[in-house]
């Protein structure tokens, strides 16, 4: 729940984000929230809306706009994911998502540094930002001056967990080790880009050419909080269909159903090399406000309705 002052700051943040992208020749788009078919993802549970589904991210429609010829697009919208609730989760939340043709995931990492650095300078008075432009979390200070840390997933597991990423994946404990052993250590001196995920965990990301076992996917962490997820987009329709099939099978094993987004697959090869990223706006706002619960950085959470 935000006070009028907090709502003003959140509004200033939204306007600053828009200025950042419009100055860089992006088109702001607003795609439908209610879709007949979604991108199948094993661990996302969508809400039904009569014979449609509420989107869990704007990715599907935004990719179709890339196929239609857009080069740079961004969107600020709400997304809906069932059963997600907690200090860092709400079933409805605000997302900033953007795509840039001709880029790969390393280009996006650089742009994240620039975006968040710019926002902290453009919007004044954030409780979580010190005078020297460092981010405050308790008595810790996080420097936002680039370059931020770039840490491969395999290295992060070696450093912080007692098990390798590959072993954890085989044992089915990757997520648990990541959440309990790795994430809490990331992004305290500087923000951290955790990158090069096992290809099984990057269903929409391009396989790395040098190391085909990993997908070109990254997550941005600040003070242990996952803020954004980006990748070099997979734009090969055949490989994407195979990966979607695996996701659909996983959804079915969990007793749910998911369809194949045929229109997206039919247009996918028109996109070309592109990088895209989704950033959790409520979490970013929370960090800038020096809070540790997104309920304190959003107008309402569900429990308040």
């Amino acid at each position, binding site marked *: 729940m935000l006070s009028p002052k907090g709502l003003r700051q959140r509004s200033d943040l939204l306007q600053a984000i828009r200025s950042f992208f419009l100055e860089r020749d992006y088109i702001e788009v607003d795609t439908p929230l209610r879709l007949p078919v979604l991108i199948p993802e094993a661990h996302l549970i969508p809400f039904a809306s009569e014979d449609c589904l509420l989107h869990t991210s704007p990715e599907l429609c935004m990719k179709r706009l890339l196929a239609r010829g857009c080069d740079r697009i961004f969107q600020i919208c709400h997304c809906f994911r069932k*059963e997600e609730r*907690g200090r860092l989760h709400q079933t409805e939340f605000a997302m900033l998502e953007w795509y840039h043709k001709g880029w790969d995931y390393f280009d996006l990492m650089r742009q994240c540094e620039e975006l968040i650095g710019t926002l902290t300078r453009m919007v004044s008075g954030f409780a979580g930002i010190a005078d020297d432009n460092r981010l405050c979390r308790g008595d810790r200070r996080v420097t936002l001056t680039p370059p931020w840390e770039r840490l491969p997933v395999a290295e992060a597991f070696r450093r912080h967990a007692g098990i390798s990423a590959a072993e954890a994946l085989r044992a089915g404990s990757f997520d*648990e080790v*990541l*959440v*309990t052993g790795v994430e809490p250590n990331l992004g305290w001196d500087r923000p951290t880009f955790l990158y090069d995920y096992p290809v099984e965990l990057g269903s929409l990301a391009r396989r790395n050419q040098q190391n085909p076992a990993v997908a070109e996917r990254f997550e941005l962490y600040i003070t242990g909080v996952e803020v954004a997820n980006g990748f070099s987009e997979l734009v090969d329709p055949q490989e994407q269909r195979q990966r979607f099939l695996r996701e659909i099978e996983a959804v079915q094993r969990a007793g749910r159903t998911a369809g194949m987004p045929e229109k997206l697959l039919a247009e996918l090869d028109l996109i070309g090399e592109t990088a895209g990223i989704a950033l959790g706006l409520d979490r970013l706002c929370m960090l800038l406000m020096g809070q540790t619960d997104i309920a304190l950085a959003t107008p309402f959470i569900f429990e308040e309705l």
Partner: protein
Amino acid sequence: MYTASDLRKGLKIQIDGEPYIVTEFDFSKPGKGQALYRTKMRNMITGVQFTQTYRSNDKFDRPNLEERTMQFLYAQDNEYHFMDTSSYEQIFLTGEQLGDNLNFLIDNMEVEVLFFGDRPIDITLPTFVNLEVTVADPWAKGDTSGSDTKPVTVQTGFQLQVPPFVEQGDKIQIDTRTGTYITRVKE
């Protein structure tokens, strides 16, 4: 049946035939990953705590728990006997089961007894109880600072800090959740 998505602080669930209460709860879900429900739980019979991470498809039975209002009768050989005032049924709990509740329990007090099936496992005291001060240093008249406190002992043997004007023989009201002094009561 509960599923993992019902988990929250304070929820009571049954695991391996025993009742547990969730004392800490944290939802986490790495990007593109599965939902993890990290919980800390206390066995409501043994008090043993443990932590466990659950996933979306985990399910739990509801424990058969029921609270009944009962009156404390007497203690003998570490057995504390209570009676249901409508059915006259009597049960007892051990001193270990009652734990810190013993600091405030006096004869004839009405409490809520928690049953797991037929088995009494815990009690809930009234939030406020009136107990007699049995040991207190006399109040040094003329001390008007008013800010100091002094230790006293009440009839159960429990010690707490109270304002200096409280004297031996007074009755005082205590918050049983925190064990702190509320006020002096006149009867």
